[in-house]
């Protein structure tokens, strides 16, 4: 006797998943589609026939390719130093090497100007300087702010490489070079490609550095887009440039997607202790010191400029520049930034948590679609998202308010924190729901009393990621801000070489706020780790 068994309805889960999917569709996908539909053939013709289009395209490709190559090589060497050599103070090195991530790209561009520009510090000290305008400066600035991201990616991969493979190779009598070629490189191939692609996407879509350093005629696609959309308010043309920038970002996204093996539960049987060879240690210290100087240089310059009266005329200490910024709109814009960053971090962390729970712990065909939707925003450059928001929401009441800035930042930055939580949920015991069901603990209760408390560390990390990025972003927000809802990072482009002490003050403010957030999160993580 066989009677067909009816499945218990799961309508609650279905509704919840569709609700989240609808939210993500509205903030990420629909604006892009709406932007694409508003591009006219005339816009395309205007862009392609523009006098600087060809050279800008070439510049973008060249500068980005060179910067990417430099970034990947330096990041790999840095990661080798901190994961494979027994140097002291690894934590401190790590902190210093990632500091440049905490200030906007445009600050790096400005720092280079202050150092090497025609009226810069180097010129003053030595009477001569390197030609910083154009390719050299753009590549250098791009390397400065993209390096920490690639470094974190590669250091993570190296840290979790299982060393027992190397022991096995040694026991089998396989030579060092052969081991490197046959073990290290294949293991690193995918991470290196992923790091290269995401660096490329990050650099090619940035306008901060080239805006400061392009000088006369060195246009890139991103600066042309900035000109068209922000200076000339020609959004259709801006959108065409946006589509061009979208292409490498999508390629990077797909490369990353294919590069990641499913379930990165790679279990480290044996971690690397770090080489103790004196030669390696000397080299590692030397290289790390060099990179630390490179990382700290812009920050040191900003601190110096921010506290002296007027470089190089009057070097007496002063707080005037801070006072000036706060007397003007600085206090208001800093408050805007803090509100945007805090709300984005809260909303984004909550959305990322719920979405990750649905995709990692309530598997169904729908959750696979939801997963794709949640990581799609990684493929959309901030500038493109920003212009799509202008073209979609310009006539709605949220336009020109803080709400739209929170929305665009959440949409822009949701993917990484979502993935953090997704991976964290993936590592939690797969039988927890089954235990909950047999013990009579419902989904909501399990979520609230078991999954949430176990996720505090990850949630803090997500919060900090969203906060820091919202504080320093200049991409999407630049299209959506006006004099009332402007975040402080956008003040930088108001100033120029002649009042760069204000750029210094603003950059330092952003850096300090972000450092406080990072420190607070480290504390929270340490406390929640100690409790277990």
């Amino acid at each position, binding site marked *: 006797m*066989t009677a*067909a068994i009816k499945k218990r309805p799961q309508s609650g889960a279905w509704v919840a998943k569709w609700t989240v999917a609808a939210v993500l569709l509205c903030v990420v996908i629909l604006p892009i589609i709406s932007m694409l539909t508003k591009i006219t053939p005339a816009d395309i013709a205007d862009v392609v026939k523009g006098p600087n289009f060809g050279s800008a395209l070439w510049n973008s490709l060249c500068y980005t390719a060179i910067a990417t190559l430099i970034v990947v090589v330096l990041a790999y060497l840095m990661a080798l130093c901190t994961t494979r050599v027994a140097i002291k103070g690894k934590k401190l090195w790590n902190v210093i090497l990632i500091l440049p991530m905490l200030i906007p790209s445009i600050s790096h561009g400005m720092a280079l100007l202050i150092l090497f520009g025609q009226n810069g510090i180097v010129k003053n000290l030595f009477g001569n300087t390197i030609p910083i305008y154009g390719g050299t400066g753009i590549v250098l600035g791009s390397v400065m702010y993209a390096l920490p991201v690639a470094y974190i990616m590669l250091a993570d991969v190296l840290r979790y490489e299982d060393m027992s493979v190397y022991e096995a190779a040694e026991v089998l009598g396989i030579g060092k070079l052969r081991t490197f070629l046959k073990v290290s490189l294949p293991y690193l191939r995918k991470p290196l490609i992923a790091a290269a692609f995401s660096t490329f996407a990050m650099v090619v879509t940035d306008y901060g550095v080239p805006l400061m350093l392009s000088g006369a005629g060195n246009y890139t696609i991103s600066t042309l887009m900035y000109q068209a959309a922000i200076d000339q308010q020609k959004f259709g043309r801006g959108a065409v440039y946006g589509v061009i920038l979208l292409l490498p970002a999508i390629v990077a996204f797909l490369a990353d997607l294919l590069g990641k093996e499913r379930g990165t539960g790679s279990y480290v049987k044996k971690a690397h202790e770090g080489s103790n060879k004196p030669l390696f240690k000397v080299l590692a210290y030397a290289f790390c010191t060099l990179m630390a100087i490179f990382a700290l240089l812009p920050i040191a310059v900003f601190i110096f400029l921010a506290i002296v009266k007027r470089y190089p005329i009057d070097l007496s200490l002063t707080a005037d520049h801070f006072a000036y910024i706060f007397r003007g709109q600085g206090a208001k814009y800093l408050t805007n930034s803090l509100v945007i960053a805090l709300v984005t971090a809260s909303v984004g962390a909550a959305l990322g948590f719920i979405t990750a729970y649905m995709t990692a712990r309530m598997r169904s065909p729908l959750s696979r679609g939801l997963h794709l939707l949640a990581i799609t925003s990684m493929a959309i450059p901030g500038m493109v998202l920003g212009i799509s928001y202008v073209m979609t929401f310009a006539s709605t009441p949220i336009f020109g308010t803080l709400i739209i800035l929170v929305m665009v930042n959440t949409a822009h930055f949701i993917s990484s924190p979502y993935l953090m939580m997704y991976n964290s949920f993936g590592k939690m015991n797969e*039988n927890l729901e*089954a235990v909950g069901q*047999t*013990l*009579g603990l419902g989904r909501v209760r399990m979520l609230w009393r078991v999954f949430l408390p176990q996720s505090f560390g990850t949630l803090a990390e997500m919060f900090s990621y969203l906060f820091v990025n919202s504080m320093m972003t200049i991409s999407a927000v630049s299209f959506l801000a006006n004099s009332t809802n402007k975040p402080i990072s956008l003040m930088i482009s108001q100033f120029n070489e002649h009042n760069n002490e204000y750029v210094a003050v603003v950059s330092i403010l952003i850096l300090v706020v972000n450092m406080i957030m990072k420190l607070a999160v480290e504390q929270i993580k340490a406390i929640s780790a100690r409790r*277990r």
Partner: protein
Amino acid sequence: MSNCKLSIQSITKQYKNSKSVALDAVSVDVQAGEFLAVLGPSGCGKTTLLRIIAGLLPPDSGKLLLDGKDITTAPASKRSMGIVFQNYALFENMTVLENVAYAAKLKARRDKSATKAEVEQRAMELLADLGIAEYAKKYPSSLSGGQMQRVAIARTLILKPDIMLFDEPASALDVATRLQLRTVIKDIQEKFGTTMIYITHDQEEAFAMADRIMVMENARISQIGTPSEIVGAPANEYVKSFVVDNLQTKIASLSKALGADT
């Protein structure tokens, strides 16, 4: 059968993306207070069967009767069954005591059957029964595998389940701990008279613990019987090689070692 606790009737299951069936019309009656071991290699369908019994997975067809009542579509929480997994699945954010008492406290609050203190006291008694009372205030991450498995057992026991289900609970433990856990589980069966269904791929474990053994292969039951019945008359070539020959190899190697000793 008068003493039948759980009647499994012609349960069939096929996973969506799979060509072969996971369970092919499996039927068995489990007696009250019985210890039934389900023995088979990985992929034979034994875990699927356990999940269907627990209500974690709906069968495609067939029936489950608990004390004569149809529970085929009843939710897991209404089946009066507890489940213990190989990887413990403890709540890592709670202490040992909270792990054990949490579900029972909620249940007691719902049907106003006991106070919080009473539940906690019962949890402490269970922890003492299982020899882990001293760890009550500790978090799971500081316990050994054997201790964690005892916590998992206490967590299901406190709800006084009619049937306890074990999904290879000893597979992740070292040999000495595994032997201790056997005693713990058999003691519970004796003390509480709980019906137990125990999934394992370890022939020796099945023979040491079970009242009856159900040998499975490829989604079907090969043979059900007491250990001596199975050794005495293996139903087919598979049972003979997978169960009987395997045990004899072990016995032979052991007696060889012992013989060399004397």
